[in-house]
């Protein structure tokens, strides 16, 4: 499914993930976790990869396996330097809490595996795997 790279696409993408998750028989808890990870990833693509709304599309595909569900997000924005995103400082006093890195940290916590690849034709491919509980 191809979605336009704008924030108002997020509920549609989430709905697509929910329906796929139901078909994969993932259970509501795992579906929520995948929805959250995909929402964070797509927000990153729109805000950081494309640098704003309506600059390009997000191609979202789902592969349903026997034991897991794989989500592949493709976009043509700037490369996603996942390893350069700082680990957020959590469990600190409220005043010291900063938002940077929380989205990527959430993605890592919600999914079992995350792989990123920049293809030779300048496409970002983010592959996220969630195993059935």
């Amino acid at each position: 499914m191809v979605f336009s790279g704008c924030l108002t696409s997020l509920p549609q993408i989430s709905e697509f993930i929910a329906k796929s998750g139901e078909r994969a028989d993932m259970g509501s808890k795992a579906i929520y976790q995948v929805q959250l990870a995909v929402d964070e990833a797509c927000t990153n693509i729109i805000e950081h990869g494309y640098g704003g709304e309506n600059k390009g599309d997000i191609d979202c595909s789902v592969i349903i396996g026997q034991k897991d569900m794989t989500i592949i997000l493709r976009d043509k924005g700037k490369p996603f330097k996942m390893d350069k995103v700082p680990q957020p400082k959590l469990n600190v006093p409220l005043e010291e809490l900063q938002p940077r890195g929380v989205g990527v940290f959430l993605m890592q916590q919600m999914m079992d595996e995350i792989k990123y690849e920049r293809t030779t034709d300048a496409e970002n491919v983010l592959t996220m795997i969630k195993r059935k509980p």
Partner: protein
Amino acid sequence: MEVITSQYKRCDLIKTSGRVDSSTAPQLEEAFNSIIDAGRHKIVFDMTDVNFMSSKAWWVLIDAQKKCKRYNRGEVTLVKVQENIRESLDLVGMGSYFQMFDDVTAAVGSF
């Protein structure tokens, strides 16, 4: 997304429903800021009908909590946080920054 605010004697109540994500979080932020800017810092956020919260949405709550707790002038408390949402919040350790209640009456009464 509709955000409803109501003013009580001792605190304010914010209620919304559905998804709070990057596209709708600014509306929630506006609701919190309008109360805080009016000098009121005791706020109950009723999440009974909220079924999705992205990190952007949590950040609105964290920011509001920082402003409200400053000088011990108030606090943001949460009502009926759905289990999936609460688990994701606890995973990133943000659950500890909020008092949570099972119903609005208890939350309003705590102020």
